[in-house]
């Protein structure tokens, strides 16, 4: 596998990059901070990534850089077959976002509009070579409108819908669009939050995503339990959802 990862320096993306590196796949990292990219690349090289790990800067706030960054990756990997997007943001708690239009706009832009613009650049390149994997981390928060994550959930609902559409339209042409829906995973991003029951660890989550990629699945919940949790939550009547805090 020759994979480009946006968000591979942290959390689940880093763990997924490690899984690929440890089995000898080739990896190219996209991220915002040069020194963090460099340290992560070194970590992946020691773990066994084939042919060294190159990196380049790419920021979800700067869509004009998406195309050039992917072109660089394509040159460095001699054409990639997999693009993974784990980058994204929580953007603060719902209450503070409700009073801060600027932060709200930033969240919507980064998690939804720009993530999709990045995926579009990736999709075009993958289709041009006859297909490949596009793996995008959305969230279970997109499965149902919920009080504590209205805005964050909305961005993820949009992203999930986009990924499902891609799968329907381009599956025939060889695009394997894998939509990953993580529940609560104990990463640096969620470090300030109280973990709910069934919170996951990055490593088993990454291993499960990797199996889904290898099988060519189009949807995976991680940890697996969250599929059933969200199944139940989706069945709850609105009258109930209005009353509970979840």
């Amino acid at each position, binding site marked *: 596998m020759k994979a480009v990862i946006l968000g591979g320096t942290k959390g689940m993306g880093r763990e997924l990059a490690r899984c690929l590196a440890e089995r000898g796949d080739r990896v190219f990292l996209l991220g915002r901070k040069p020194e963090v990219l460099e*340290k992560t690349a070194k*970590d992946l090289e020691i773990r066994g990534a084939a042919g060294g790990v190159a990196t380049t800067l790419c920021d979800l706030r700067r869509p004009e850089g998406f195309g050039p960054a992917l072109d660089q990756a394509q040159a460095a990997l001699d054409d990639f077959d997999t693009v993974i997007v784990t980058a994204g943001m929580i953007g603060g708690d719902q209450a503070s976002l409700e009073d801060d239009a600027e932060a709200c706009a930033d969240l919507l832009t980064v998690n939804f509009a720009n993530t999709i613009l990045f995926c579009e650049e990736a999709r075009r390149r993958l289709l041009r070579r006859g297909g490949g994997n596009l793996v995008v981390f959305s969230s279970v928060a997109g499965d149902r409108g919920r009080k504590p994550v209205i805005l964050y959930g909305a961005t993820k609902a949009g992203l999930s819908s986009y990924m499902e559409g891609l799968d329907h339209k381009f599956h025939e042409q060889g695009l394997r669009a894998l939509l990953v829906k993580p529940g609560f995973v104990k*990463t640096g991003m969620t470090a300030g939050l109280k973990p709910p029951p069934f919170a996951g660890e990055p490593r088993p989550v990454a291993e499960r995503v990797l199996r889904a990629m290898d099988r060519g699945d189009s949807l995976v919940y991680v940890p697996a339990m969250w599929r059933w949790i969200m199944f139940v939550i989706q069945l709850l009547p609105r009258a109930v959802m209005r009353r509970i805090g979840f």
Partner: protein
Amino acid sequence: MSTIAGWGRYPIVQGTERRSEDLEAATRDALLVRGLGRSYGDASLPPLEGQTVINSTLADRLIAFEPETGILRAEAGFSLFDLNRLFLQRGWATPVSPGTQFVTLGGMVASDVHGRNHHVKGCFGEHVRALRMRVADGRILEVTEANERELFRATLGGMGLTGHILEVEVQLEAIPSAWIFRESLQVYNLAELITNLRESSLDWPFTACWVDSMKRGPQMGRGIVTRGRWAEPHEAPAKPPRPRKGPAVPIDFPGWVLSSLTISAFNSLYFHKHGRSLKRGVVHPWTFSYPLDAIGSWNRIYGRRGFAQYQCVLPIENDPSVVQRFFEVMTSSGEASFLTVVKDCGAEGKGMLSFPRPGISIALDLPMHADKTQAITDALNEVVIAAGGRIYLTKDALTRPDHFRAMEPRLDAWNAVRKKWDPDGLIRSALSVRLLGDEA
């Protein structure tokens, strides 16, 4: 806020554990760093309810590895489990391993862990080349034997109290294969145990003895001596050993599951199952080094009450009968140790407060029974003090400060170094409050 406890699940405190991938930033003004929480007592706990400790386990990047020399540098949260998973198959192993691989490099330094090869390899700290640390005044330093000898030596076995460990550089050991050649045999009493253990240590790099701690009288100290070495390539299976995942204990067992009666029955069964003959063969390195890791959350068998580990080392140069005395006090106490391990220790290492010294080390698992466990700890500590031995802080939850001082003539020197680097006592733990007189 949630509960924080060591592996013995006693004591338990309410506190916040903050995980961060950026240990350098997270340790700014931090009270304490903990790793995988495998020290048994209160070493990785905050001094007061409600305080925050930093969890290092997400700070686990590899920083450098030289395949020619086996020198590895990694962030402090990198686990021994990952080290084994990644490096055994490449022909490199940690030179010193404790009885579990669910520990971090930072924790291995803070406890200056020892293993079954202590008589040849010493503690982990003997193989540490450099540390990167955030000291109490906020500076980040590269700490080696050459440039900061005192701080380096005080940090090996310093229980994380001399500064926050950010990175560890260690010399790995080249191994002929990733498998272990093992022999095991029964011994029928204490004298035989000690003789056999010491003789085995002359020829074998790994030695230890499981003891049926319920036996009294002439059979006191009967057990199974296990010895091993890395298997030669021609003995070992062609493929490297695969990581294994065993079952986990799903619930806290009720208290009666581990009573004197069941422990006694289990010990007898385990002893007789081995049989009288010498057993030998090549085994999976995990089976050999980490038998308990095969059962996830095994600490739950002790139930909600938790358990206390107790480990001491007794010098026997002058008076070998001290081991006998220790076993007599233990077996007559009425408290049962579920798992007892005896090991001969080699020379003292560099760590100013490291546990091992020449003699016989004895490790016990005691199900927690309020006052009774405290009383047996006190009684055993008195034997240890009289013999000139000491206890292992990583296992301890119950030792009294006056007992600790009586067995640690090295404490003043270590305290002086700690005081020099942290004059205001910013870095503390529940253990340092209990034993070292820190203010909570």
